[in-house]
């Protein structure tokens, strides 16, 4: 009890609240800027927070983490450019909604469900960190491989119009993921003597290229044909009562997905967003409009990816193993402040755990409040003439991508993928499965080969978690292939009968 009060009280110091405010401003700016990630911001901020008190420093860093997660969604919805991988799935329905004149609604729903996701995950963090962290340790290479294979089956569902084109896109994604050094032997693959390609294609550059730049090029090429409004028609802001009801189910389903994925080390907001979107789609009554501007899709992807925050905090604090790249930087700072993350943190310093939870909750609520208030003002920016907007976005994308590596090569990669994106668009090959292949390919490959190194082929099935997950994946693929065949057969039988 005293720990609870002390922990909460520690946050409500003027200096800590000031730090929280600082983190908020930095985080929101970072989130909106495509290419600049929360990891980068936290890493740079950790240089300045080193000399602060631990609680003050945690307030800055955790608030950046939370606020960036909110800000991320805005460019995804308004300009089809995911600020970070975590908001890839947001573009699936968010941007079509914006194109349909529902940008305001999409932004508000996204902010609301992101808050729900984070708060739900913080409940889990505060109540069950230590046992959950132990569960997380059960995920070794073979289990990770099984999770990734299961996640790959959603390629089927995100291939909106044509399954063949969707799978083709998925394979393209898997192929570009092999560029770089072999994860086990370290041999160069498809690098063609270009030094930069040794570390693979920069992921952020590829997604900004495929989504944002491709959209921009597309607008450039078509602006004479017909008037594509950049989303100045924002429509309504607040959801109606029936819309609240509609988003309740996808929020709960994808929230659970996000909580589970968050705890698995090495799987983060990007995978959770895609999986959550997929699960909500298959449970939805309005499945066919997913990907065309369905509000349930926005709710699902953003709840799921936000709900991973508590999960990564769990493995970070309860094991000392960073749950994502932001947390890796955070651990470094915590150790400097003399805080040793690990199981003993919860035993020896319960007040600090309460403080961390309080900071996260407070940061979430304040960010949500500010987001709801400022959205109309911010979105006004998009009322500018289209040629100014897209030109500005191009400049921002270039600066943001350059900042990831300080190397123009990365910008080139982004622009090349912009061109590829336009070509694919014209062939109506979806970009979603490409990104999925790009995220999951390296994870699948490296974990499969680790499993084989450790245990040989038997390692894939002699562990209960991986065996069950792989069985699910097989069922998912078989049903996906069998359902249309069976339906056709039934139809044939019906026509034969009626004849």
């Amino acid at each position, binding site marked *: 009890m005293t720990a609870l009060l002390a922990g909460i009280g520690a946050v409500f110091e003027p200096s800590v609240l000031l730090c929280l405010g600082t983190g908020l401003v930095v985080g929101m700016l970072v989130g909106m800027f495509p290419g600049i990630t929360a*990891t*980068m911001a*936290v*890493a*740079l901020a*950790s*240089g300045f927070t*080193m000399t602060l008190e631990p609680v003050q420093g945690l307030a800055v860093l955790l608030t950046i983490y939370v606020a960036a997660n909110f800000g991320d969604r805005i460019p995804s919805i308004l300009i089809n450019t995911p600020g970070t991988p975590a908001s890839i799935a947001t573009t699936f329905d968010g941007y079509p909604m914006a194109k349909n004149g529902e940008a305001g609604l999409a932004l508000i729903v996204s902010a609301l469900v992101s808050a729900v996701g984070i708060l739900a995950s913080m409940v889990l963090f505060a109540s069950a960190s230590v046992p959950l962290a132990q569960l997380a*340790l*059960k*995920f*070794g*290479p*073979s289990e990770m491989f099984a999770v990734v294979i299961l996640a790959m089956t959603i390629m089927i569902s995100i291939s909106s119009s044509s399954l063949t084109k969707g799978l083709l896109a998925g394979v393209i994604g898997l192929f570009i993921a092999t560029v770089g*050094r*072999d*994860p*086990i*032997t*370290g*041999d*160069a693959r498809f690098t063609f003597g270009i*030094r*930069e*390609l*040794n*570390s693979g294609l920069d992921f952020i550059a590829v997604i900004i290229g495929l989504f944002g730049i491709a959209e921009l090029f597309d607008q450039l090429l078509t602006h004479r044909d017909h008037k594509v409004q950049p989303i100045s028609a924002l429509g309504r802001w607040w959801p109606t009562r029936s819309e609240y009801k509609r988003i309740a189910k996808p929020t709960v389903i994808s929230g659970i997905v996000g909580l589970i994925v968050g705890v698995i*080390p*090495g799987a983060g907001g990007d995978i959770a967003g895609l999986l959550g979107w997929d699960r909500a789609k298959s449970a939805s009554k309005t499945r066919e409009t997913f990907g065309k501007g369905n509000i349930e899709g926005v709710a699902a992807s953003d709840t799921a990816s936000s709900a991973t925050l508590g999960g990564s905090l769990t493995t970070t604090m309860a*094991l*000392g*193993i*960073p749950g994502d*790249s932001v947390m*890796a*930087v955070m*651990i*470094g700072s915590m*150790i*400097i402040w*003399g805080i*040793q*993350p*690990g*199981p*003993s943190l919860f035993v020896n310093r319960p007040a600090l755990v309460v403080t961390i939870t309080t900071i996260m909750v407070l940061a979430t609520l304040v960010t949500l409040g500010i987001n709801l208030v400022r959205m109309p003002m911010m979105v006004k920016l998009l009322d500018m003439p289209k040629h100014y907007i897209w030109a500005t976005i191009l400049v921002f994308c270039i600066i943001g991508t350059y900042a990831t*590596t*300080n*190397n123009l090569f990365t910008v080139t990669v982004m622009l090349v993928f912009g061109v590829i994106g336009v070509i694919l668009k014209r062939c109506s090959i979806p970009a979603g499965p490409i990104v999925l292949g790009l995220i999951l390919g390296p994870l699948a490959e*490296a974990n499969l080969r*680790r499993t084989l*190194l*450790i245990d040989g082929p038997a390692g894939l099935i002699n562990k209960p978690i991986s065996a069950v997950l792989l069985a699910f994946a097989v069922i998912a693929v078989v049903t996906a292939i069998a359902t249309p065949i069976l339906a056709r057969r039934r139809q044939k039988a019906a026509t034969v009968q009626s004849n």
Partner: protein
Amino acid sequence: MKLSKFFMQSAAAAALFGLALATPSFAQDKFPSKDITFVVQAAAGGASDRTSRAIAAELEKDLGVNVIVENRPGATGTVAFAHVAEQPADGYTIGFGPVEFAIAEHIGYDFNRENYTYLAQVMDSPVVLAVRADSPYNTLEEFLEAAKTEELSVSNSGAASAFAAATFTLSKMTGAKLTGVPFDGGAPAVAAALGGHVDAVTAGAGETATAFADGTLKVLAIFSDKPHPMFEGVKTAKEQGYDLTFGAWGGVYGPAGIPDDVKEILEESIRKAVSSQTFLDAITPAGILPVYRPGDEWKAFVDAEAARYGEMLAQ
């Protein structure tokens, strides 16, 4: 009286201000007279970045100019190394040179150790071998003995790293059957050992310190010349009869041909930085040890390491 005091103070302030304005013009031809760029071969957040920023902060204080840290990650660091090699050798572009200086050339990168001026080694992060707390092995001897009859898996932070080399060399030296399993970074490698998916892990001191302090990992050996302050009671490999040292060391380098007078100023400034308390406070919590070797000695060390890794990686 009061008025005259006021005038006196104003005059003093004006004089000081004038002096401050004048100083740079005296210093124009003396190194350094403009900002220094410090290139880091890794992204913000890791051990290289942490050490570099700590060094840069000390150099800034000592030299009186801005030292701007620039992260240029990619291709095992060789993107940054190549960039530095192309800059003018005037001392205004320096960088962080990690253990990859001794490895890159052996794993197919276009990299030549001779293209650089070696200023000083500043740190070392020794490799440790650890097992889960409930593992039957308590000493390096027991572990290697068991690995003679049964194949044991050892996770590490990545292919062709100092950590992977440690496992490989240990296995070759003793005939123990150890399978190195590369992961994507030190943290997942440690997690795999904690979860019991592999029999042991070779990782940096900093990455294992948390689990060691919590009692969830047993550290069997540390591959360094001397005991590590964070691992009380842990013997070095040498003390256990295996004369092996492995570390993720690093130093400060610049393009080849930095003039001797500039080199001396930088070397001296780096030497002071490494012995400063603020530098220590910034790096030791991450398991990094301050190690100072002046430029020539560090170069000799890099050459020796490169020869050693050449042999190990040629297999």
